[in-house]
C-alpha cells in the first residue's frame, strides 16, 4: 500500500491541475454494524475504476465474491483488486465487527479510482454479505453517509445450520466467538437456492430451539431488517 501511494503521489498532484474529476483522494472510512444480532467478517473497502465491480445484482457472483460471502475470505477479492490497481482497506476491524460496533480506516485513492465498494460476510448466514457497489466518491471535501443493505450471493442454499465456509461446502461457518450463540442439530431450512444471482437477502428464518428444529440460528436474535450497515466517508 505504501509503495503504491508513493508512486501515486506525483500523479495526484498533477491531477489537481488537470483532471479534477478523477483526482486522487484521502478518505476516512467508517463502517458501523447497525444490526442487533449479526456480526460482520473482515471488511474490504476498495476504491477502483468505475468499469470494475465486486458484484452486480442480478448476475452470478464471481468465485472470489463467493469465497467472501460463504466464508469471509478476502484473499480472492484482494488479489483481483491488486491486478486492477485498486486501493484497498482490508480488515480495519481486525476480525469480527459485532452488533452496533464501528471501525474506521484510511484509504488513499489513486488517480482514476473514483468509486468505492465495501463488502463483508454477515454471520450467521450461509452466503449473506453487506454490499456497497460502485459508490461515486465525491470530489468535494466533506462527510458523506451511505446506508448499506444485506445481499445474498446466491451461491449456497440458506439451510441455516452449522457447516463450513469453503465455497461449495454447505452450512454456515461458525467462528469461536459465535459458537455459544448458535444452536446445533438443526435439520436445515432448505436444500435449494432459488435465485442463483446476487440479490437482496430474504433474511434468516431461525427457530426457538437451540438443540434441534430446522435452523441453528435464533429467531429472536439472528435476524435483521435493512439497512444493516452505515458507511461514513470523510473526503479530506
Amino acid at each position, binding site marked *: 500500500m505504501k509503495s503504491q501511494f508513493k508512486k501515486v503521489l506525483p500523479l495526484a498532484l498533477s491531477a489537481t491541475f488537470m483532471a479534477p474529476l478523477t483526482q486522487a483522494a484521502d478518505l476516512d472510512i467508517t463502517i*458501523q454494524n447497525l444490526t*442487533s444480532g449479526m456480526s460482520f467478517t473482515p471488511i474490504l473497502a476498495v476504491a477502483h475504476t468505475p468499469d470494475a465491480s465486486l458484484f452486480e445484482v442480478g448476475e452470478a457472483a464471481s468465485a472470489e465474491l463467493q469465497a467472501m460471502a460463504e466464508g469471509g475470505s478476502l484473499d480472492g477479492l484482494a488479489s483481483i483488486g491488486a491486478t486492477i490497481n485498486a486501493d484497498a482497506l482490508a480488515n480495519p476491524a481486525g476480525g469480527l465487527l459485532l*452488533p*452496533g460496533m*464501528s471501525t474506521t480506516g484510511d484509504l488513499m485513492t489513486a488517480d482514476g479510482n473514483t468509486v468505492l465498494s465495501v463488502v463483508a460476510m454477515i454471520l450467521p448466514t450461509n452466503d449473506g454479505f453487506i454490499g456497497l457497489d460502485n459508490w461515486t466518491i465525491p470530489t468535494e471535501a466533506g462527510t458523506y453517509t451511505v446506508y448499506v443493505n444485506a445481499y445474498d450471493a446466491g451461491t449456497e442454499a440458506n439451510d441455516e445450520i452449522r457447516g463450513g465456509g469453503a465455497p461449495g461446502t454447505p452450512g454456515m461457518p461458525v467462528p469461536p466467538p459465535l459458537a455459544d450463540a448458535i444452536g446445533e442439530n438443526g435439520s436445515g431450512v432448505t436444500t435449494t437456492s432459488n435465485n442463483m444471482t446476487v440479490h437482496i437477502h430474504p433474511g434468516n428464518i431461525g427457530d426457538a430451539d437451540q438443540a434441534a428444529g430446522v435452523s441453528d440460528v435464533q429467531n429472536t436474535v439472528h435476524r435483521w431488517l435493512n*439497512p444493516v450497515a452505515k458507511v461514513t466517508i470523510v473526503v479530506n
Partner: protein
Amino acid sequence: MKSRKKIKLLSLVVTSAMLLAACSDNDTDPVQPVPVPTPTSVDVTYEVTVTNLTNAQPLSPLGVIIHDEGHLWTIGETASLALETMAEGGDNSQLLALPVGLANASGMAPIGPGNSDTVSITIQDRVDSYISVATMLVNTNDAFTGLDKYNLAELAVGDSQTWRFAALDAGTEENSEAMSTIPGPADGGEGFNANREARNIVTYHAGVVTNADGLDTSVLDASHKFDNPVIRLTVTRIE
C-alpha cells in the same frame, strides 16, 4: 451598537443641558425621556408531523424536544434511562423532562397504523438549536423510532424537511415477545422495567418474529410484523 447609542444619547443630554442653561426662561422641557427598548421575545414554532407506516404497530404519543446539547440516543451506545422508559413502555415524560431540553411537547394520544399526528413546539428567539423526536412501536418489547438531533438552522419560516425512519431497538429488553412483556394492545403487558437488559446498546431493530413465523411463545401474530421504514416524519417551521 449599544455603546454608540449611549454616546449619542449622552451628547444629546449634554447639548440639551446646555440649551436649558442657555434658555433658562424656557419652562417647557424639550428633552423627551428616551425609552429604553424592552426586548420582545419572538416565538419560533415548529410542527412535527409523524405518519405511522406500519401494519399494526400503534405508536406511543410523540415526544419532542428542542435542545442544544446531547443526543436522545446513539447507535452502538447504551440507552439512557429516559429512552429506556419510552422504548419499553411508551412513556415519554422523562425524555420531555431531560435537563438539556430548552422546550418540549408531547403528542396527545397514540398514533394508530395509517394515521398521523402533528405536534407544535415553540421556543423563543432561537433558530439554531436542534430538535429530536421519539416514539415507541408499542406492540414490541423495546422498539422505537424517531429523529435524533436535527439542526433547526436548516429551516427558514415555511421550510420543511421530511424523512422516513427505520425501527430501532433500545437493547434494554430481550425481544422475547412473551406474554405480559409487551405494553401495546396485542398484550397489555408490562412496559418499563429497569432489569431485563438484552445487548444493552441501541441498534437497528431486527423485526418481530411472531407466533405465525415460528416463535410459539410470542403473543404477536402476523399482523404485527413490520419492515423499514416505519414512520414518515416532517418538521416544518411555521413562525
